[in-house]
């Protein structure tokens, strides 16, 4: 193995980071839902793909440009998330046993995946626009236009969520309710409202991620699961409930995959990515970006 020239290294790093931001944007939504309800929302990937199909439908039938459809997908996602919470998770959120909501998420995943198959068929679908597969130069590095846009979407989404969580009282209430629902109600916080908001934002992010996915990748109803898995890894790397950490975790994952693909072999990317993930947890059991404490 010879060391690559600096520009190749830069090339690798930028493209890897852009690729990782895709995991990141999935992870941020997941992180929010996970952080509030301690729920591994395994269906997040399926929701992203569902959004991608909707983006495609808007484009094919109404001629709405995929990036412009962000203006539709985000509010639609928000509304859908609100409804999904109220309809499906409200009851389970009050249960001690968190497997219950995990399984509802699995049920939703089955349901969404197969509804998509029934409606759009199982074949690979794609959105083709004038800018599909076009490249841009950046810092002397050639990279993908849609991925760069995806990266911006990830940054913007994460930024907004962070502002919300850190700087608004409602954001803090979201975190409070996730920690102790009873105590939160005593503060006058309505846990279900707060959970629904978190869920709605999470699914709104899935809507945004759907735009990024639709413009960049071909997809099929089952393509989302891998996003869920990678997003979970990203999330744990960053530290559960830490939204910036989730994005950073995604980017780190993307970088690891790029470096492994380049320096070792594409066949080992997953194993090594998961290996690094486990190794990191061994040394920083609460993720890279959180400060733990223990007290009796």
């Amino acid at each position, binding site marked *: 193995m010879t060391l690559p020239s600096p520009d190749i290294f830069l090339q690798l790093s930028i493209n890897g980071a852009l690729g990782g931001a895709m995991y990141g944007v999935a992870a941020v939504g997941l992180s929010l839902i*996970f952080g509030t309800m301690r729920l591994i929302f395994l269906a997040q990937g399926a929701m992203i793909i569902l959004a991608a199909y909707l983006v495609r439908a808007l484009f094919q039938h109404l001629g709405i440009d995929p990036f412009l459809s962000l203006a539709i997908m985000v509010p639609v996602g928000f509304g859908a998330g609100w409804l999904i919470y109220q309809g499906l998770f409200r009851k389970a959120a009050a249960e001690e046993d968190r497997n219950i909501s995990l399984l509802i998420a699995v049920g939703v995943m089955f349901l969404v995946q197969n509804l998509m198959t029934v409606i759009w068929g199982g074949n690979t679908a794609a959105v083709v626009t004038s800018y599909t597969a076009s490249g841009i130069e950046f810092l002397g590095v050639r990279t993908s236009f849609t991925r760069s846009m995806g990266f911006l979407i990830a940054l913007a989404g994460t930024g907004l969520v962070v502002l919300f969580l850190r700087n608004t009282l409602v954001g803090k209430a979201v975190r409070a309710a996730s920690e102790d629902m009873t105590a939160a109600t005593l503060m006058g916080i309505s846990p279900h409202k707060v959970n629904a908001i978190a869920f709605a934002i999470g699914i709104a992010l899935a809507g945004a991620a759907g735009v990024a996915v639709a413009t960049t990748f071909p997809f099929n109803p089952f393509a989302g699961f891998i996003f869920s898995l990678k997003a979970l890894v990203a999330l744990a790397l960053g530290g559960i409930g830490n939204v910036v950490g989730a994005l950073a975790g995604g980017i780190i994952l993307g970088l690891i995959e790029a470096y492994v693909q380049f320096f070792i072999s594409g066949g080992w990317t997953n194993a090594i990515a998961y290996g690094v993930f486990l190794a990191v947890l061994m040394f920083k059991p609460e993720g890279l970006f959180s400060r733990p404490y223990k007290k009796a």
Partner: protein
Amino acid sequence: MFAQNRIWLAAAVVVLALLPLWPGVIDSYAFSFLFFVFVYAILAQGWNLIAGFGGQISLGSHAFFGLGAYTTAILWSGNYLWGSLYQAFPRIYYFDPVTMVLSGLVAALAAALIGLPLLSKLRGDYFALGTLGFGEIVKVMFVNGGDFTGGAFGVVAPSSTFETLMPHYWTGLGLTVGTALAIGWLMRSRYGLALIAVRDDEMAASANGIDTLKVKVAAFAASAFIAGLAGSLYTYYIFHVGPDSVFSLDWMLLPLMMTVVGGTGTLLGPILGAFVMYAVFDLARIFVPDYHPIISGLTIILAMLYLPKGLARLRPAAARA
């Protein structure tokens, strides 16, 4: 459990065990159906041990199931165990207790090795995600394992031994009952006490003299052992183990779902859940082949919304172990 319940359960087991002797019944679909129910029930029981009783949510059952399945297939197809005896007795590996136990042990060993670091460092959600990552690593290792693991295709075992489902059925039944009894005994012993204590409050448990890591790792390994047995049993049915099939996440998600539907932390729950859920899935597949996953998805959601404590807790008699 009331004594009366026990009598009913024992009677049910006897009836199930004798069922194949009923004339004409042998040739029915019921046996392959029940065989799969048993495989899932065993897996579910294993998961219930670590997650339901131990409180450590593992998302890695599929890894241990696959390790067990591979161990059986590799030992058999490579004849690593019985040497020249194999020529004399070509069926020696088929339902061979030694092979099966070794398959469980390999899974248990892997669980112990990975469990030591994971369980000493990771709590709750992080442990769950760690086990999920472990499952993926194992899978990639088998894909890249060269001739020994048969690479991406996997290993085939001699399927000519497969003539009837009866050994599968009886072994499945035996293991289902056996694991339930073993776990029931375990939970009544001092180890059960420790396991529950660790689940309820780890810090208090260690302050009261419990080696929490040891307890957790032992439970994790025992649960993996059970999953490995299920994998071995499955190999005797499917004869082909490949990374995509035996390390499929289905082997984790379905048993988990069955346990929760049946009732986590109960002995009967995993079995009940496996039976009911597999029946629902199977009927849906037969009657609405094009849409059945939608029905299955809905069933899971409805079950969770309206039966969150599980079937086994519907009647007060089936109390905790």
